[in-house]
């Protein structure tokens, strides 16, 4: 069993127009820049993207939005050091925005992967984010009901991956990546290093291979923060 592929292109090109795509990362940390750039090269349009943020500068998710490929963004925090691209698209009504509190976003994704269609949370009760959502009391405290979130594709970034798809992450670059891997029909992962099965201690696997469909080695991945400091623009 070997789920590795040589280049992002050969697997990214299966993503059709209109797909829902989860993109890992929190800001630039853990963002699968090379996979996102392959998605720009591929050109799929009318995407719904799930990410914590809305991109920064003119690379990665910001570049995907700048290319007009994203119809809707589901995120918790569409602000960043340089959110120009998203802000312009949003103000021009070129992109729809669904704001989800960060913990609710994480749990909706986990539930999507774990087969739980709905759950109750105290988060956002009594706020405008809760408008229209069912409310119920448990032990005298009010909660709102939230629904799972699933995707057609997840693009995630890890550190080491084996040929079965078992993966580790690097420090805070873990963030949304492991849960997004579980919530998509097809998960495409980039890792800095591919090893043979057995190359990761079974105790240290964070994402078991069952959640990963395609694995590509990007030996020296770009770091969004550094690209932006260099004022990089993609493509």
């Amino acid at each position: 069993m070997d789920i590795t592929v040589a280049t992002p292109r050969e697997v990214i090109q299966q993503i059709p127009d209109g797909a829902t795509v989860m993109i890992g990362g929190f800001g630039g940390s853990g963002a699968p820049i090379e996979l996102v750039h392959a998605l720009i090269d591929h050109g799929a349009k009318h995407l719904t993207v799930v990410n914590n943020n809305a991109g920064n500068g003119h690379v990665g998710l910001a570049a995907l939005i700048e290319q007009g490929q994203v119809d809707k963004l589901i995120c918790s925090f569409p602000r960043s050091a340089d959110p120009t691209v998203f802000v312009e698209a949003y103000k021009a009504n070129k992109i729809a925005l669904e704001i989800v509190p960060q913990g609710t976003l994480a749990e909706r994704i986990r539930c999507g992967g774990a087969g739980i269609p709905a759950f109750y949370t105290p988060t956002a009760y009594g706020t405008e984010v809760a408008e229209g959502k069912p409310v119920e009391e448990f032990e005298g405290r009010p909660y709102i009901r939230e629904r799972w979130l699933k995707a057609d594709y997840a693009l995630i970034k890890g550190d080491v991956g084996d040929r079965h798809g078992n993966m580790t992450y690097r420090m805070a670059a873990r963030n949304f990546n492991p849960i997004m891997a579980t919530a998509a029909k097809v998960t495409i992962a980039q890792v800095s290093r591919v090893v043979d099965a057995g190359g990761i201690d079974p105790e240290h696997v964070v994402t078991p291979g069952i959640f990963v469909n395609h694995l590509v080695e990007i030996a020296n991945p770009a770091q969004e923060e550094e690209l932006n400091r260099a004022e990089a623009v993609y493509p």
Partner: protein
Amino acid sequence: MIDISDIKLSNAQIAWRAAQDIQDGAYVNLGIGFPEMVASYQPEGREVIFHTENGVLGFGAAPAPGEEDWDLINAGKKAITQKPGTSFFHHADSFAMVRGGHLDVAILGAYQIAQNGDLANWSTGKGGIPAVGGAMDLVQSAKRVAVVTDHITKKGDPKLVESCTMPLTGVGCVTRIYSSLAVVDIANNRFVLREKIPAISLDDLQALTGAELYTNEGVDDLICPEDLL
């Protein structure tokens, strides 16, 4: 109305005061920006463990410039460091800690705080782009939710109000306010004044506050180190 610009506490002094209330061994989340300053003023001999929403517990201070590793950042996307006892985990686990009530203290900024504990700090409600992040989770679930804030807005309007006019972050969640003029608790749907800076009179403080300040449990002087500016 009284001009408080010369007597009010600096942000560093407010942060210092908030830090004094954090117990040894507490698990604490500090909001992005001003609240992060609280970490700088932990009293000697207390070990506090900081949580950041993006999946790190027990992290260390900012690295020296040039030493940043951008895979190791906090919720404000600033570089942080590891130290003995650090752990990493994914976002669902991070918010299981938050929502599950495992954090002892969350300290956030505020646009408005109502006397029933409602907090508005995520959206001015005036258009622009809303961005909630993890605040709604934190305020609803940390064991203790406190606010560090100027007592009034730049225009001079009270931030402590009868009821919030801006979009809420959470309902009935704040229990203590560390402002630039006072320490105010929220109990039984009212503001209970605990401490005020000596330079302001009770009447003037009340005039700068949007709802009644209860003082019947005694008001102490709020004294902070003077060199924190």
